């Protein structure tokens, strides 16, 4: 439960309200191992602690990357950190995207807004073993062209012949040359085998609900769909109960769940 210390190596502004912190491995350790989809508890001294998904490459353990959207006091305090600043860290916590289970299948990744950050490590892992997967599709939706995360990387991915990338925004002026519409509207454009695909989804809950409904229309079974959920995580080890969702603790049993296992609870508004 005690945070370890790591140093900010670099900071980068991604969009108007989102930034990336690149941290050294904690306490001078030789690397920081994690699985795609896992998160850390980051502690800004004097401000507080928040859960943040790891958005970096699992094959590069010497650079610990988190992409954060400013939504409150703690994330605002973290935005002010400069290279060399010290941050507390606990983790990694939680379950991972099914990168191994997806081998041999088509993989369709659907991200909404900041939801691309926790999915990026999964894509790195898949691309590092690209020959072990069938078709790989990334669909990403966000508010405006200015809110697109990892823009240069998306452009690089789009240029690959073994990866299909679709990006859409909710609103755009005439200069935008890409798609306009919520992310669910571009799902029909993706080519994949509905019976042999693994679907990874991360984004706001409403977006995930409509996305899942869109895949169901295409005869994808719920046990082929994995989602990353978000709740108010505090202890991150399944003790405090803040992130309880039915019988599951998001911090310990999640944040990544196979959808059929969590569906009955995901749809209950009161929890």
């Amino acid at each position, binding site marked *: 439960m005690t945070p370890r210390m790591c140093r900010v190596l670099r900071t980068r502004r991604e969009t108007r309200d989102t930034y990336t912190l690149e941290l050294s491995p904690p306490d001078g350790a030789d690397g920081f191992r994690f699985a795609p989809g896992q998160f850390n508890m980051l502690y800004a001294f004097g401000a507080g602690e928040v859960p943040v998904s790891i958005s970096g490459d699992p094959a590069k353990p010497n650079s610990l990357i988190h992409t954060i959207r400013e939504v409150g006091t703690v994330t605002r305090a973290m935005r002010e950190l400069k290279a060399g600043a010290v941050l507390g860290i606990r983790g990694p916590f939680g379950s991972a995207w099914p990168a191994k289970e997806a081998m041999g299948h088509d993989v369709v990744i659907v991200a909404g807004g900041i939801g691309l950050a926790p999915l990026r490590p999964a894509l790195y892992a898949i691309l590092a073993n690209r020959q072990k997967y069938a078709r790989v599709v990334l669909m990403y939706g966000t508010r405006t062209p200015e809110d697109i995360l990892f823009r240069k990387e998306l452009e690089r991915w789009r240029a690959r012949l073994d990866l299909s990338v679709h990006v859409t925004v909710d609103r755009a002026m005439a200069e935008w040359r890409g798609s306009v519409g919520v992310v669910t509207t571009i799902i029909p*454009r993706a080519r994949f085998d509905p019976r042999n695909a693994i679907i990874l989804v991360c*984004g706001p809950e409403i977006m995930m609900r409509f996305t899942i409904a869109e895949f169901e229309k295409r005869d994808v079974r719920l046990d082929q769909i994995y989602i990353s959920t978000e709740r108010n995580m505090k202890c991150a080890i399944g003790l405090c109960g803040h992130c309880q969702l039915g019988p599951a603790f998001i911090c310990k049993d999640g944040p990544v769940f196979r959808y059929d296992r969590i569906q009955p609870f995901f749809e209950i508004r009161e929890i």
Partner: protein
Amino acid sequence: METLRPILAEHPFFKGLDEHHLDLIVGCASNVRFNAGEFIFRQGEEANHFYLIREGLVALEMFVPGRGPVKVQTAGEGEVLGWSWLVPPYRWIFDAHAMELTRAIALDGKCLREKSEQDHDLGYHLLKRFATIVQENLDAARLQILNIYEVRA
């Protein structure tokens, strides 16, 4: 003579339609092509067609004084563009322009309206299909209004 019949028969929008109705529809169909930047229709013009996009990307835009054209939706391969031909006063609400070279099948709405008046079953099958398109677009528009990607503390 080669017709558009096989293409229409295979298109998901017309899936399940009987042969007789398909024959009636083929008589109202034509192949069209729009260069990048070309307008397919413009706000306020008479709406007499809808389009099955075979290739390309089309933007639906509304001109907002002081801001210029705002893109509200795009439609790509396999999608259906336009339903103003169905509802009086049959005028386009938005501009549609091809963002890239776009190939489509244009269905003459006036022709289909006339045939539907004579054959109500055809009208019913068309309306049933358009109801789905309208519902999907309405859902998408509502999600856009909700600004679902916004994160609040």
